[in-house]
């Protein structure tokens, strides 16, 4: 197995920019939700960006990725254009899905983002199908699917894990274990603390990593990816992380402990990579602020373009029911 590249200036910056792009986008989405420009049930991944970036950065548009209800980051990391994404959240015709999907149902086929799903766990078997399609076609494309710790208690998850293992499918299951499902901690959902342990019986290779360390995510995923390209699988990568925002925008977050919050602010994946870059010398003092600034500008431009996009015509509703 080729060991994954070391983080150097180029890669470090790419990872940093990738995370900032998501952060800047979602912070803006939060504002726009409060301003009623972005609509619906909006789940932000702020604090969890390292997972999406560590995973999707290594995939090509031929690889199928599936996200869950908290999927802005997944889509962005997979290459979805920010303007079309923002327009989608605003319900505009220029949106990725022409405004028909919304925050929980992002799809960008061109970039191999085959879809986010609002039903917890509902996306997992679809990734198996994409992986099987790739094998049947003789391709080396793989499939990856993001899901939360809450999904691991749903029957569809374990059915899928069993099937993926039975058929040895080249699929990588990426769990964002943020310790909460809505307002209740994992301990109220399962006696099994680690999702990697849930799948242990099925004999798939698995790893649990610090999901706030983008390099750790990247390295662990790289190993699985390389094997999956050779047709091996399935794999499970569990990323321990934390959402710094409420479950959804508007969540009063009564269940939060202030102390844990502070601790997690310190572990913010962006800050951590910045600190590391400064320590290791591949990042200079000014760069973080510049990257932040640039991504915020990208996002502003996306907002501008999205705002210019009209709402779709109501007739669109009946035009796209059948292919």
């Amino acid at each position, binding site marked *: 197995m080729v060991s994954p590249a070391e983080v150097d200036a180029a890669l470090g910056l790419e990872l940093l920019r990738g995370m900032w792009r998501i952060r800047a986008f979602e912070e803006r989405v939060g504002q726009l939700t409060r301003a009623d420009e972005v*609509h*619906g*049930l909006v789940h932000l991944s702020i604090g969890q960006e390292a997972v999406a970036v560590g995973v999707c950065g290594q995939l090509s548009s031929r690889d199928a990725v599936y996200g869950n209800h908290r999927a802005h980051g997944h889509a962005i990391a997979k290459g979805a254009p920010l303007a079309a994404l923002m327009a989608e959240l605003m*319900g*505009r015709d220029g*949106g990725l*899905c*022409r*405004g*028909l*999907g*919304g*925050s*929980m*149902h992002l799809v960008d086929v061109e970039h191999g983002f085959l879809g986010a*799903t*609002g*039903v*917890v*766990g509902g996306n997992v078997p679809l990734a198996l199908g994409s992986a099987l399609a790739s094998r049947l076609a003789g391709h080396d494309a793989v499939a990856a699917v993001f899901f939360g710790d*809450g*999904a691991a*208690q*749903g*029957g*569809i998850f374990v059915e899928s894990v069993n099937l993926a293992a039975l058929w040895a499918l080249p699929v990588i299951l990426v769990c964002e274990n943020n310790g909460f*499902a*809505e*307002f*209740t901690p994992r301990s*109220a*959902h*399962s006696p099994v603390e680690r999702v990697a342990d849930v799948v242990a019986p099925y004999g798939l290779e698995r790893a649990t990593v610090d999901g706030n360390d983008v390099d750790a995510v990247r390295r662990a995923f790289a190993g699985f990816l390389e094997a999956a390209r050779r047709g091996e699988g399935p794999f499970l990568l569990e990323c321990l992380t934390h959402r710094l925002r409420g479950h959804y925008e508007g969540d009063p977050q*009564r*269940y939060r402990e202030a102390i844990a919050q502070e601790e997690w602010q310190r572990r913010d994946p962006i800050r951590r990579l910045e600190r590391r870059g400064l320590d290791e010398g591949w990042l200079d003092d000014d760069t973080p602020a510049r990257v932040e600034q640039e991504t915020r500008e990208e996002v502003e431009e996306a907002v501008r373009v999205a705002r210019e996009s009209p*709402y*779709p015509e*109501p007739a*669109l*509703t*009946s035009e*796209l*029911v059948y292919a």
Partner: protein
Amino acid sequence: MSETTMLEAIRTSLAEAMRADERVVVLGEDVAAGGPWGATAGLADEFGVERVRNTPISEAAICGVAIGLAQSGLRPVVEVMFVDFVTLALDQLVNQAAKAHFMSGGQLAVPLVLRTQGGAGQRGGAQHSQSLESWLAHVPGLKVVMPSTAADAAGLLRSAIADPNPVVFVENKTLYFRREEANGSEPVLLGRARVARRGRDVTVVATSRLVSEALAAAEELAREGIEVEVVDPRTLVPLDLDAIVESVSRTHRLVVAHEAVEHGGFGAEVAAQVQSAAFDELDAPIERVGAPFAPVPFSPPLEDAYLPDRADVTTAVRTLLRRSA
């Protein structure tokens, strides 16, 4: 008189039922934390987490657990957060709960209430906005309740909990926070329609959110001298067909209005029954108001256009009057 909301009424009614009968237990995702809307807020404090049980995201298993509880003498009220996710629990609900009494030759009873909520209007997208009650009304053994007011919600919930059968209680998310006069929570019998407004010209049978839409339409039409009678069946199973037929035999015109997709919706059943029971009374074909045959679009203007509302009821009434003029 004081004010309340449907959410408050449900919470109060649940608490009263739990106080009155210790066999009543509540279970569902985040229910001890109150749930996303607060329908169960405070219950865990008063009744403890043994009777107000948080569950994992396992819709099928928690419905199954509720069935087991019910078969063993308790009175579970299980919450499925969105009716869209009842899709995950239908084997339990339809193959087990609905048939247990029958298949056991009457030995078992499954007195459970499945509370859930449906409907669009909050930009939730196609997977969080459906209205699937017509599926449930097609299942012998289930009762199906759809309250449209706070008072009805409270009273119907009490009856649902007291009922020895599995009852699906379908709330509507857009009705939760509307303010209404508080009317206590007298039990409301299942299977009794409520005439929400009297009128002589056209009968509108409406459910859930469409009841207030129909009333608004009636208000508007009244200004033109058109008197609409609005009948809220309140429960789809059992259905108070007599009340509907009685109304139609006076007005000779019927509109059936619901938010669900019109095609295959419960309105079809009402229409089919009424044309059979009151064929000679009808001066014009029964009009249906329901959503178009499409998933619920996310985009706000599209969702607004998609949603059946007072304007659709008004149009249907006018169409009827024109046809039978």
